[in-house]
Protein backbone atom coordinates (compact mmCIF):
# COMPACT_ATOMS: atom_id res chain seq x y z
CA UNK A 1 0.00 0.00 0.00
CA UNK A 2 1.62 3.21 -1.11
CA UNK A 3 1.01 6.75 -0.04
CA UNK A 4 1.85 9.00 -2.97
CA UNK A 5 1.87 12.73 -2.16
CA UNK A 6 -0.10 14.64 -4.77
CA UNK A 7 -1.45 11.50 -6.39
CA UNK A 8 -3.96 12.46 -9.08
CA UNK A 9 -7.11 10.37 -9.07
CA UNK A 10 -6.33 7.31 -11.14
CA UNK A 11 -8.71 5.26 -13.31
CA UNK A 12 -9.61 1.63 -12.72
CA UNK A 13 -7.38 -0.52 -14.92
CA UNK A 14 -4.36 1.77 -14.94
CA UNK A 15 -0.92 0.71 -13.79
CA UNK A 16 2.28 2.19 -12.44
CA UNK A 17 5.85 1.54 -13.45
CA UNK A 18 8.10 0.84 -10.47
CA UNK A 19 11.80 1.53 -10.90
CA UNK A 20 14.42 0.16 -8.52
CA UNK A 21 17.98 1.48 -8.40
CA UNK A 22 20.81 -0.19 -6.53
CA UNK A 23 23.65 1.70 -4.90
CA UNK A 24 25.91 1.10 -7.89
CA UNK A 25 23.35 2.44 -10.31
CA UNK A 26 21.96 -0.84 -11.59
CA UNK A 27 18.28 -0.47 -12.44
CA UNK A 28 15.32 -2.73 -12.89
CA UNK A 29 11.79 -1.71 -13.81
CA UNK A 30 8.44 -3.49 -13.69
CA UNK A 31 4.82 -2.52 -14.22
CA UNK A 32 2.13 -3.26 -11.63
CA UNK A 33 -1.60 -2.74 -12.00
CA UNK A 34 -3.22 -0.55 -9.38
CA UNK A 35 -5.53 -2.72 -7.33
CA UNK A 36 -7.26 0.05 -5.40
CA UNK A 37 -10.35 1.89 -6.59
CA UNK A 38 -9.85 5.49 -7.74
CA UNK A 39 -12.01 6.56 -4.78
CA UNK A 40 -9.31 5.45 -2.35
CA UNK A 41 -6.60 7.94 -1.55
CA UNK A 42 -3.74 5.43 -1.58
CA UNK A 43 -2.23 3.29 -4.32
CA UNK A 44 -2.54 -0.43 -3.65
CA UNK A 45 -0.35 -2.78 -5.65
CA UNK A 46 -0.75 -6.56 -5.50
CA UNK A 47 2.59 -8.22 -6.24
CA UNK A 48 2.96 -11.88 -7.04
CA UNK A 49 6.23 -13.15 -5.59
CA UNK A 50 8.19 -15.15 -8.14
CA UNK A 51 10.95 -17.24 -6.54
CA UNK A 52 13.41 -16.53 -9.32
CA UNK A 53 12.24 -12.98 -9.85
CA UNK A 54 14.53 -10.00 -9.69
CA UNK A 55 12.03 -7.43 -8.46
CA UNK A 56 9.10 -9.22 -6.82
CA UNK A 57 11.11 -10.88 -4.02
CA UNK A 58 12.55 -7.45 -3.19
CA UNK A 59 9.09 -5.85 -3.10
CA UNK A 60 7.49 -8.63 -1.07
CA UNK A 61 10.37 -9.58 1.27
CA UNK A 62 12.53 -6.50 1.69
CA UNK A 63 10.43 -3.36 1.30
CA UNK A 64 9.00 -2.23 4.61
CA UNK A 65 7.00 0.60 6.19
CA UNK A 66 8.71 3.91 5.60
CA UNK A 67 10.62 2.85 2.48
CA UNK A 68 10.29 4.95 -0.65
CA UNK A 69 9.71 3.67 -4.16
CA UNK A 70 10.22 5.42 -7.48
CA UNK A 71 6.98 5.33 -9.49
CA UNK A 72 5.80 6.51 -12.88
CA UNK A 73 2.09 6.84 -13.45
CA UNK A 74 -0.80 6.38 -13.43
CA UNK A 75 -0.52 4.96 -16.93
CA UNK A 76 -3.21 3.84 -19.34
CA UNK A 77 -6.27 5.01 -21.21
CA UNK A 78 -7.22 1.97 -23.24
CA UNK A 79 -7.57 -0.69 -20.57
CA UNK A 80 -9.65 1.45 -18.21
CA UNK A 81 -13.26 1.40 -17.03
CA UNK A 82 -15.24 4.21 -15.55
CA UNK A 83 -18.59 3.60 -13.84
CA UNK A 84 -21.25 5.80 -15.34
CA UNK A 85 -24.92 5.54 -16.06
CA UNK A 86 -24.40 4.64 -19.70
CA UNK A 87 -22.02 1.72 -19.11
CA UNK A 88 -23.12 -1.53 -20.76
CA UNK A 89 -22.98 -4.81 -18.83
CA UNK A 90 -19.43 -5.55 -17.79
CA UNK A 91 -17.63 -8.84 -18.42
CA UNK A 92 -14.28 -9.24 -16.69
CA UNK A 93 -12.08 -12.24 -17.53
CA UNK A 94 -8.88 -12.67 -15.55
CA UNK A 95 -6.13 -15.29 -15.47
CA UNK A 96 -3.86 -15.48 -12.42
CA UNK A 97 -2.47 -12.05 -11.51
CA UNK A 98 -4.50 -10.66 -14.41
CA UNK A 99 -7.32 -10.24 -11.91
CA UNK A 100 -5.58 -7.26 -10.30
CA UNK A 101 -6.71 -4.47 -12.66
CA UNK A 102 -10.13 -6.11 -12.84
CA UNK A 103 -10.31 -5.90 -9.05
CA UNK A 104 -9.73 -2.16 -9.27
CA UNK A 105 -12.71 -2.01 -11.64
CA UNK A 106 -14.85 -4.10 -9.26
CA UNK A 107 -13.86 -1.94 -6.27
CA UNK A 108 -14.54 1.21 -8.26
CA UNK A 109 -17.95 -0.11 -9.24
CA UNK A 110 -18.78 -0.69 -5.56
CA UNK A 111 -17.32 2.58 -4.31
CA UNK A 112 -19.18 4.62 -6.91
CA UNK A 113 -22.50 2.95 -6.08
CA UNK A 114 -22.86 1.74 -9.64
CA UNK A 115 -25.48 -0.91 -10.39
CA UNK A 116 -24.04 -1.81 -13.81
CA UNK A 117 -24.43 -5.59 -14.06
CA UNK A 118 -20.98 -7.13 -13.86
CA UNK A 119 -19.56 -10.63 -14.09
CA UNK A 120 -16.06 -11.76 -13.24
CA UNK A 121 -14.64 -15.02 -14.59
CA UNK A 122 -11.41 -15.63 -12.68
CA UNK A 123 -9.08 -18.51 -13.53
CA UNK A 124 -6.58 -19.64 -10.89
CA UNK A 125 -4.61 -22.82 -10.32
CA UNK A 126 -6.11 -23.67 -6.94
CA UNK A 127 -8.15 -22.06 -4.21
CA UNK A 128 -4.95 -20.90 -2.48
CA UNK A 129 -4.05 -18.94 -5.61
CA UNK A 130 -7.31 -16.99 -5.61
CA UNK A 131 -6.39 -13.42 -4.66
CA UNK A 132 -9.03 -11.31 -2.87
CA UNK A 133 -11.12 -14.43 -2.31
CA UNK A 134 -12.98 -13.28 0.77
CA UNK A 135 -13.56 -9.81 -0.62
CA UNK A 136 -14.93 -11.29 -3.85
CA UNK A 137 -17.27 -13.57 -1.90
CA UNK A 138 -18.53 -10.57 0.06
CA UNK A 139 -19.07 -8.45 -3.04
CA UNK A 140 -20.88 -11.24 -4.86
CA UNK A 141 -23.22 -11.72 -1.90
CA UNK A 142 -24.33 -8.08 -1.84
CA UNK A 143 -26.94 -8.66 -4.50
CA UNK A 144 -26.13 -5.44 -6.34
CA UNK A 145 -25.57 -7.05 -9.73
CA UNK A 146 -22.02 -8.40 -9.28
CA UNK A 147 -21.50 -12.11 -9.98
CA UNK A 148 -18.22 -13.99 -9.52
CA UNK A 149 -17.31 -17.22 -11.32
CA UNK A 150 -14.13 -19.04 -10.35
CA UNK A 151 -12.41 -21.77 -12.29
CA UNK A 152 -9.68 -23.74 -10.54
CA UNK A 153 -7.55 -25.37 -13.19
CA UNK A 154 -5.14 -27.60 -11.25
CA UNK A 155 -6.57 -28.53 -7.88
CA UNK A 156 -10.01 -28.15 -6.34
CA UNK A 157 -11.01 -28.41 -2.67
CA UNK A 158 -13.33 -31.18 -1.54
CA UNK A 159 -16.92 -30.43 -2.43
CA UNK A 160 -15.99 -27.83 -5.05
CA UNK A 161 -18.93 -27.10 -7.33
CA UNK A 162 -17.42 -24.38 -9.50
CA UNK A 163 -15.58 -24.75 -12.79
CA UNK A 164 -12.52 -26.99 -12.75
CA UNK A 165 -10.82 -26.52 -16.08
CA UNK A 166 -9.19 -23.91 -18.29
CA UNK A 167 -11.40 -21.24 -19.74
CA UNK A 168 -12.96 -22.56 -22.95
CA UNK A 169 -15.76 -21.67 -25.33
CA UNK A 170 -18.41 -23.57 -23.40
CA UNK A 171 -17.50 -21.80 -20.15
CA UNK A 172 -17.46 -18.37 -21.76
CA UNK A 173 -20.78 -19.05 -23.44
CA UNK A 174 -22.28 -19.95 -20.09
CA UNK A 175 -20.79 -17.01 -18.17
CA UNK A 176 -20.79 -14.17 -20.66
CA UNK A 177 -23.67 -11.79 -21.24
CA UNK A 178 -25.68 -12.64 -24.37
CA UNK A 179 -24.23 -11.07 -27.47
CA UNK A 180 -27.35 -8.92 -27.97
CA UNK A 181 -26.62 -7.11 -24.68
CA UNK A 182 -23.41 -5.74 -26.23
CA UNK A 183 -21.29 -6.10 -23.10
CA UNK A 184 -18.00 -4.31 -22.55
CA UNK A 185 -15.31 -6.90 -21.90
CA UNK A 186 -11.89 -6.66 -20.26
CA UNK A 187 -9.52 -9.64 -20.46
CA UNK A 188 -6.24 -9.68 -18.55
CA UNK A 189 -3.55 -12.24 -17.74
CA UNK A 190 -0.69 -14.11 -19.39
CA UNK A 191 -0.54 -13.60 -23.15
CA UNK A 192 -1.68 -17.12 -24.07
CA UNK A 193 -4.68 -16.82 -21.73
CA UNK A 194 -5.67 -13.44 -23.13
CA UNK A 195 -5.33 -14.52 -26.76
CA UNK A 196 -7.38 -17.65 -26.18
CA UNK A 197 -10.16 -15.93 -24.23
CA UNK A 198 -10.44 -12.89 -26.51
CA UNK A 199 -10.30 -15.06 -29.60
CA UNK A 200 -13.05 -17.31 -28.25
CA UNK A 201 -15.29 -14.36 -27.44
CA UNK A 202 -14.92 -13.09 -31.01
CA UNK A 203 -15.80 -16.57 -32.28
CA UNK A 204 -18.91 -16.47 -30.07
CA UNK A 205 -19.99 -13.32 -31.86
CA UNK A 206 -18.85 -10.52 -29.56
CA UNK A 207 -17.68 -7.40 -31.33
CA UNK A 208 -13.89 -7.26 -31.23
CA UNK A 209 -14.07 -3.52 -30.62
CA UNK A 210 -15.92 -4.12 -27.34
CA UNK A 211 -13.15 -6.35 -25.97
CA UNK A 212 -10.18 -4.66 -24.30
CA UNK A 213 -7.13 -6.75 -23.48
CA UNK A 214 -4.00 -6.45 -21.38
CA UNK A 215 -1.22 -9.01 -21.59
CA UNK A 216 1.02 -9.73 -18.66
CA UNK A 217 4.48 -11.19 -19.27
CA UNK A 218 5.67 -14.37 -17.63
CA UNK A 219 7.02 -12.41 -14.69
CA UNK A 220 3.82 -10.44 -14.20
CA UNK A 221 4.72 -7.93 -16.91
Amino acid at each position, binding site marked *: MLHVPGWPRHRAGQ*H*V*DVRLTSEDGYRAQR*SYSIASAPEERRVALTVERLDDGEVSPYLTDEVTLGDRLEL*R*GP*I*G*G*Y*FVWEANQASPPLLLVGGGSGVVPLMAMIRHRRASGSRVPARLLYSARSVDDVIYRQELERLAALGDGMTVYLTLTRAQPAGWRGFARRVDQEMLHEVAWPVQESPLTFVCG*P*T*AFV*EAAAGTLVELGYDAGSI*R*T*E*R*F*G*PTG*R
Partner: protein
Amino acid sequence: MPPSELLLDGNAIGGLLREIFAVEMTSASSTCGGCGAVHAIGRLDVYANAPGVVARCPACGQVLMRIVRGRGRVWLDLAGMRCLQIADPDT
Protein backbone atom coordinates in the same frame (compact mmCIF):
# COMPACT_ATOMS: atom_id res chain seq x y z
CA MET B 1 1.98 -22.31 -32.23
CA PRO B 2 1.11 -20.62 -28.92
CA PRO B 3 2.17 -16.98 -28.68
CA SER B 4 5.54 -16.29 -27.14
CA GLU B 5 5.56 -15.44 -23.46
CA LEU B 6 7.54 -12.38 -24.51
CA LEU B 7 4.63 -11.02 -26.53
CA LEU B 8 3.01 -8.13 -24.67
CA ASP B 9 0.91 -5.23 -25.88
CA GLY B 10 0.96 -1.46 -26.02
CA ASN B 11 -0.22 -1.23 -22.38
CA ALA B 12 3.26 -2.40 -21.35
CA ILE B 13 4.89 0.64 -22.97
CA GLY B 14 2.26 3.14 -21.83
CA GLY B 15 4.69 4.74 -19.40
CA LEU B 16 7.47 5.06 -21.98
CA LEU B 17 5.10 6.55 -24.59
CA ARG B 18 3.65 8.99 -22.04
CA GLU B 19 7.17 10.31 -21.42
CA ILE B 20 7.95 10.68 -25.12
CA PHE B 21 4.62 12.05 -26.32
CA ALA B 22 3.57 13.93 -23.20
CA VAL B 23 0.03 12.57 -23.60
CA GLU B 24 -1.59 9.21 -22.80
CA MET B 25 -0.92 7.01 -25.83
CA THR B 26 -2.43 3.57 -25.19
CA SER B 27 -5.80 4.91 -26.30
CA ALA B 28 -4.34 6.50 -29.44
CA SER B 29 -4.79 4.46 -32.59
CA SER B 30 -2.55 3.56 -35.49
CA THR B 31 -3.32 2.75 -39.10
CA CYS B 32 -0.95 0.11 -40.43
CA GLY B 33 1.02 1.22 -43.48
CA GLY B 34 1.05 -2.35 -44.70
CA CYS B 35 -2.48 -3.70 -44.38
CA GLY B 36 -4.48 -0.64 -43.33
CA ALA B 37 -5.76 -2.19 -40.09
CA VAL B 38 -6.60 0.28 -37.31
CA HIS B 39 -5.80 -0.67 -33.70
CA ALA B 40 -5.51 1.06 -30.37
CA ILE B 41 -1.86 1.34 -29.34
CA GLY B 42 -2.80 -0.67 -26.25
CA ARG B 43 -3.73 -3.53 -28.54
CA LEU B 44 -0.55 -3.66 -30.66
CA ASP B 45 1.75 -6.68 -30.45
CA VAL B 46 4.70 -5.40 -28.45
CA TYR B 47 8.13 -6.99 -28.01
CA ALA B 48 9.81 -5.09 -25.22
CA ASN B 49 12.44 -7.65 -24.32
CA ALA B 50 14.95 -6.46 -26.90
CA PRO B 51 17.60 -3.80 -27.42
CA GLY B 52 14.59 -1.58 -28.09
CA VAL B 53 10.81 -1.72 -28.18
CA VAL B 54 9.12 -3.07 -31.29
CA ALA B 55 5.35 -2.70 -31.80
CA ARG B 56 3.78 -4.70 -34.62
CA CYS B 57 0.42 -4.73 -36.33
CA PRO B 58 -1.73 -7.50 -34.79
CA ALA B 59 -3.24 -8.19 -38.19
CA CYS B 60 -0.18 -8.50 -40.43
CA GLY B 61 2.91 -8.32 -38.20
CA GLN B 62 4.36 -5.22 -39.84
CA VAL B 63 6.62 -3.14 -37.59
CA LEU B 64 4.68 0.00 -36.66
CA MET B 65 6.97 1.46 -34.02
CA ARG B 66 10.60 1.07 -33.00
CA ILE B 67 11.83 2.88 -29.91
CA VAL B 68 15.41 2.91 -28.68
CA ARG B 69 16.56 4.85 -25.67
CA GLY B 70 20.21 5.48 -24.85
CA ARG B 71 22.61 8.08 -23.56
CA GLY B 72 20.15 10.88 -23.29
CA ARG B 73 18.36 10.28 -26.59
CA VAL B 74 15.25 8.51 -27.81
CA TRP B 75 15.13 7.18 -31.38
CA LEU B 76 11.62 6.74 -32.63
CA ASP B 77 10.56 5.18 -35.93
CA LEU B 78 6.89 5.36 -36.84
CA ALA B 79 7.44 4.80 -40.56
CA GLY B 80 5.44 1.57 -40.53
CA MET B 81 2.30 3.50 -39.61
CA ARG B 82 0.31 5.30 -42.25
CA CYS B 83 -1.20 7.46 -39.58
CA LEU B 84 -1.34 7.91 -35.82
CA GLN B 85 -4.53 9.32 -34.26
CA ILE B 86 -4.24 10.96 -30.84
CA ALA B 87 -6.94 12.67 -28.80
CA ASP B 88 -6.32 16.40 -29.08
CA PRO B 89 -4.73 17.50 -25.78
CA ASP B 90 -6.35 20.87 -26.22
CA THR B 91 -9.95 19.62 -26.00
